[in-house]
C-alpha cells in the first residue's frame, strides 16, 4: 500500500511539472461550469419582430356583446418577442432584409371585417429572413405565440357563444340596437306551451301546439350539449401527462448530469490511460514490477490517481454549475458518491486503454476515439432508432461506464431511476471487467 502511495506522490509531482496539463485540469471545470451554467440559466434573448398594424385605430372585433381590439391581440404576442412597430409592409420587409428585425408580422386592414363576419377566416402575414440558424428558432417562437394568441381568441369566442346559448336556453336580457330586448328562452317557452296544451279543451289547438312544445324541448336539450361541444372544438385534445417510473427529470438538471459525466470521463480516461502508458514510455515499468510494485497495485494506483483528479475536477464543476442552476444541495452527499463510482469505472477503462495502446499518444487518441462515440450512444433515446439497433446500443452502453455513470449522477442529482445503488453496482462490475482487461494487456508491456 505504501508503494502505491509513493507512486501516487510521484505522479502528482509529474502532473505539477506539466503546466499545460495541470492548467487544463484547473481551467477546464471552471470554463465548462460557467458555459453550462450560463446556457441553462439564461433563456435565449427575445427575437425582435416588426409589427405592422394596418387596422385603423379604434376598430374592434365585435363578438356578440364582446369587443376585442387589435392592440389586445398584438399585446398577447409580446411575451416572447420584442415588438418593433412600423407603419408599412415595405418598411417591415426592409427591416427584415437589413437584419434589424428577425421577422415581421403584418396585420391586414380587413382582419376586423373577416373576424366579425363569422364567415371568413382572418389572416396575418409573417415574413422571415433566410438565415437558417435563426429562422428555425424565430419561426418556432412566432408560431407558438400566434397559436397562443389564436387559442385565446378562440376561447373568447367560445365564451361569447356560450353566453348567447345560455340566453337562448334560459332567457334573459339582450342588448340590440341600443335597447334591451327580453328573450324568453327555450326552457320557459316549453313550460308555457306545456301549460297551454294542458289547459286547452280544443283538440286542434293541442294537436298544433304539441310538435312546437316537443321542438322546444329538443332544442333546449341539444343546446345544453352545445356548450360542451364548443369547448371540445376549441381545445380538441387535452393532454394529461403521466410519468411511468421515477421522478420526472427536469431537462436542465439532466443536462448538468450529462456535462459532469462527460468531464469526469475525459479527465479520468485520458489521465489513467496516459499515466499508465507513460510508465512504459519512460522504461520504468520493468523496473517497478520486478518486486517493487505488483502490476495489480500499479493498475490500482493509476485508477486512484485519475479518479482523485477527475473527481475533484467534477465536484468543482458541479458546485460551479450549482451557482447557476437550481440543484438540491441536500443531495450533495449522493453527488459525491455517484462521482466516485463513475471515477473508478472511468479510471479502469483508462488503464485498459493505456495497457492496450502502450504509448502515451496512442493511448490519448484511443481514449478520445472510444469515449466520444460511447457518450453519444448513451444519449440515444429509445425510439430514435430501429428496435434491433437500440438493443445493440443498450448492450454496448451497459458494457462501458458512461451510461451507468450518467444514470448514477442522474439518480444522485434528480432521484431518478435506476437508483444510485443499482448504478453504482453496475459501475463496479464494469470497473472490475476493465481492470482485468488491463491486467491481461500488461503482459505485453515489458
Amino acid at each position: 500500500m505504501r508503494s502505491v502511495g509513493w507512486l501516487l506522490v510521484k505522479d502528482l509531482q509529474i502532473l505539477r511539472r506539466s503546466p499545460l496539463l495541470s492548467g487544463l485540469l484547473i481551467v477546464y471545470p471552471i470554463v465548462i461550469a460557467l458555459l453550462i451554467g450560463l446556457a441553462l440559466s439564461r433563456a435565449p434573448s427575445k427575437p425582435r419582430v416588426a409589427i405592422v398594424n394596418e387596422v385603423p385605430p379604434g376598430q374592434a372585433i365585435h363578438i356578440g356583446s364582446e369587443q376585442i381590439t387589435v392592440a389586445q391581440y398584438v399585446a398577447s404576442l409580446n411575451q416572447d418577442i420584442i415588438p418593433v412597430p412600423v407603419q408599412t409592409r415595405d418598411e417591415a420587409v426592409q427591416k427584415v432584409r437589413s437584419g434589424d428585425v428577425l421577422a415581421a408580422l403584418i396585420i391586414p386592414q380587413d382582419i376586423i371585417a373577416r373576424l366579425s363576419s363569422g364567415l371568413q377566416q382572418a389572416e396575418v402575414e409573417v415574413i422571415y429572413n433566410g438565415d437558417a440558424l435563426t429562422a428555425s428558432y424565430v419561426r418556432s417562437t412566432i408560431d407558438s405565440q400566434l397559436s397562443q394568441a389564436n387559442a385565446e381568441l378562440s376561447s373568447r369566442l367560445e365564451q361569447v357563444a356560450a353566453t348567447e346559448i345560455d340566453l337562448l336556453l334560459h332567457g334573459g336580457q339582450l342588448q340590440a340596437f341600443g335597447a334591451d330586448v327580453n328573450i324568453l328562452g327555450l326552457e320557459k317557452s316549453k313550460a308555457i306551451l306545456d301549460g297551454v296544451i294542458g289547459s286547452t279543451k280544443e283538440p286542434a289547438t293541442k294537436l298544433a301546439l304539441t310538435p312546437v312544445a316537443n321542438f322546444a324541448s329538443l332544442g333546449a336539450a341539444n343546446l345544453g350539449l352545445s356548450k360542451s361541444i364548443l369547448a371540445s372544438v376549441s381545445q380538441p385534445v387535452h393532454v394529461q401527462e403521466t410519468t411511468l417510473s421515477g421522478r420526472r427529470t427536469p431537462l436542465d438538471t439532466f443536462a448538468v448530469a450529462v456535462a459532469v459525466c462527460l468531464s469526469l470521463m475525459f479527465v479520468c480516461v485520458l489521465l489513467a490511460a496516459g499515466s499508465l502508458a507513460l510508465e512504459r514510455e519512460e522504461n520504468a515499468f520493468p523496473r517497478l514490477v520486478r518486486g517493487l510494485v505488483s502490476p495489480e497495485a500499479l493498475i490500482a494506483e493509476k485508477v486512484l490517481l485519475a479518479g482523485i483528479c477527475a473527481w475533484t475536477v467534477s465536484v468543482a464543476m458541479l458546485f460551479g454549475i450549482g451557482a447557476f442552476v437550481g440543484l438540491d444541495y441536500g443531495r450533495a452527499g449522493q453527488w459525491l458518491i455517484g462521482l466516485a463510482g463513475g471515477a473508478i469505472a472511468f479510471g479502469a477503462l483508462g488503464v485498459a486503454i493505456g495497457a492496450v495502446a502502450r504509448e502515451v499518444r496512442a493511448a490519448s487518441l484511443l481514449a478520445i476515439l472510444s469515449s466520444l462515440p460511447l457518450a453519444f450512444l448513451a444519449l440515444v433515446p429509445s425510439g430514435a432508432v430501429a428496435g434491433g439497433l437500440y438493443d445493440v446500443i443498450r448492450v454496448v452502453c451497459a458494457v462501458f461506464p458512461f451510461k451507468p455513470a450518467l444514470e448514477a449522477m442522474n439518480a444522485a442529482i434528480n432521484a431518478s431511476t435506476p437508483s444510485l445503488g443499482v448504478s453504482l453496482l453496475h459501475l463496479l462490475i464494469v470497473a472490475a471487467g476493465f481492470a482485468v482487461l488491463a491486467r491481461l494487456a500488461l503482459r505485453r508491456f515489458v
Partner: protein
Amino acid sequence: MTATVVLRADGVAKRYRSRDALRPLTLELRAGELAALIGPNGAGKTTLLSILAGVIAPSAGSVDRLPREVGWVPQQTALYGRLTVAENLRLFARLERVADPGATVARMLDQIDLAERAGDELSRLSGGNRQRVNIAVGLLADPPVLLLDEPSAALDPRQRERLWGFIASLVGEGTSVVFSTHELAEAERYAERVLVLADGELLFDGAAGELGSSGDGKHRDLEAAFVAFLAERGH
C-alpha cells in the same frame, strides 16, 4: 579460497512461440566477480540479464535470488524525465524500502558525483549523466549482484572511464557485476570472466585470455578472436 556464490541460475531458458531466445544454461556468480556478457545482436544477452533480474520469467529453470536482491540497470534509462535527480533516487529508495532513503540518496549523489545537479529535472541532463543516475538507482538497495545492460553505450570516453572506475570500486567492495557489451576492448580490459552467447546458447565461459587463445591462437586482439570463435562454431 573460493569466493561465495552470490547468484545461481539453474537451467534457465526462454522460448517465444517457436523461437528459442535462450537455450537452457546454468551459471554461477561469485562475490566480487566482474563478468562480461558478449555476443552478436540477438544473441540473448538482454534476455539472460532480464531473467537474472526478474524482469521476465524464464520458460524453464530458476534463479536463486529474488528480483529485489539483484541490482538491475537496463540499457535505456528507466527513470522519470519530469522528476529531479534526487526525486528519482528518493522514489526508488522508498520503493526498495531502504532503511534511510534520505541518507542513501545523499550517498548515491556523492558516488555518482551529481550532488550539484540533484535538483535538476532528469530530462535536462546529458545522456551520460542520466546513465549515472540509472546505475545509481540499481545500487540503491546495496545489492550483492549488479547487472548492467550495455552501460557504456551512450557515454563518451571520459564518462566511460569514470563509469569503469566506479564499477571497479563496487567490485572491490565485494559486489558481483555482470555487464553486457559490444565493446570487446572493455570486456578484455575490465572483465576477469567472459561469457559468450550466440543464438541463445552459452558458447564460452572463461577468462578473456582463454577466448583469445582459441583456434590457432594467432589473433591480434579479443575482437578478432571472438569473430573467429563464432565462425568456428557456425555463427
